[in-house]
């Protein structure tokens, strides 16, 4: 419950952010600013899913395949 409240507060706080116009997004659109893993990072995500108990919440694989070797 505490986590949900914190998340809700963050979301409300973000609503107060100023809107950035498309022509002001030169820095946001930099390839290194992407809010996603790089394409070649997928292999690291795969072996981490196999070697660690945690998975998900990273845009990577969340199921399928045994990963048992």
């Amino acid at each position: 419950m505490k986590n949900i409240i914190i998340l809700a507060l963050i979301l409300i706080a973000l609503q107060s952010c100023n809107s950035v116009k498309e022509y002001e997004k030169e820095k946001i659109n930099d390839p290194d600013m992407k809010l996603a893993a790089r394409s070649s990072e997928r292999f690291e995500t795969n072996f981490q899913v196999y070697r660690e108990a945690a998975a998900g919440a990273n845009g990577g694989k969340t199921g399928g395949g045994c990963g048992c070797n």
Partner: protein
Amino acid sequence: MKNYFFLLLFLCSFSLFGQEQDSTLVFKKRVLESVEVDFLMSYYKQDGIHSAVSGGSGMEELTDITPTIVVAVPLNDDDVLTVDMGISAYSSASSGNINPFDSATPSPWQASSGASAKDVLTTLVINYSHSSDDRNTIWNAHISGSVEYDYSSIGFGGGLTKLFNDKNTEVGIAANFYLDTWKPIYPKELQDFADNGNTLNGGIFDDFTITGNTNYNPTNFVFQPEKNRNSFALSFSFSQVLNKKTQLSIFADVLHQQGLLSTPYQRVYFADVSDSFINEFQLADDIERLPDSRFKLPIGARLNYYINEKFVFRTYYRFYTDNWGISSHTASVELPYKITDRFTIFPMYRFYTQSASKYFAPHEQHLSTDEFYTSDYDLSTFDAHQYGFGVNYTDIFTASKIWKFGIKNIDFRYNHYSRSDGLEANIVSFGIKFVLDK
């Protein structure tokens, strides 16, 4: 004359309307301008001393090579079809020890040449995505399949993403289903014991002499009745541009798995059962037994900050918990540095820590009266450090060409992974993206 005037106005208005429609079409940017082809490859090598196949004690040497190709085809201005095909060819000393008895001196510390020591995993994912005219709504659907010797998987799913607030806010939801099927293989001594009517007459027992407890009798062992493993994942994402130099995203998944969640060839040794050996290889008391359902809840966030023209600061954090008693924290940072307009080098570091599953105990520490047990150190308590670097070449104008393909992007990464239980790994990844000339 008056009628002609009205007719002219009427035709002009149609003409203007037509021009407006045309101008909309002209200025609608294609989601993907041209066919893009990604060639990806990785080489992974690990070693450790806690092989799950030999009950938490034995070599974990594994080598894996994964050539992959991803082709993205624009079907029209709005739709993109992506086909992702890959293989993962591995050799594994520990899975080779499912049957270590093809050697005259079986040992958990030497690689077996058995059939299970090598395998190839083949995967295929086909994804279709559609963007609305204003590019504020994107939906996608995909199907996937993978197959290896003892395991196959089919999957399907889809998602919807909405953008708001001048594309500063993005909200997404996705659902994925995976229907997996085992073709279980068991430790050779348990398979032969069961095949011979729970006796020591036949199979490997005719070829080797048992030492230690010579009355080997794994009474807990029965074949797994369940062959299926189904996974369902519901994913939520939220992204926000905070200002001209900072953006944030938050992800949460709800994952549920059901079916055969243990691995049928991973051995377990009990503290209350006398030990039996062939050479120095300890014969299994049973295979791991785990509940037939698991509920996972990971929540993660990324925060990227543009420091200046040279540096970007990329961060990631994830909290994970499940109903097997595991909780974990993951944190990573990456600091891309632009050497030139086209070349970027990025050092990176990742920290991971987890608590053990309530079903885990090391070698020889479970009791035969337990309901669930595993000695797989992937489910143990440990910390892990991963560090390395990457080099990236990006040329959005694709000046360098090979035949009809311009090189848009080249990515190289190296990382070393060190786990506190002694597992060490190295991984090298390489990717090159081509764009087909129009």
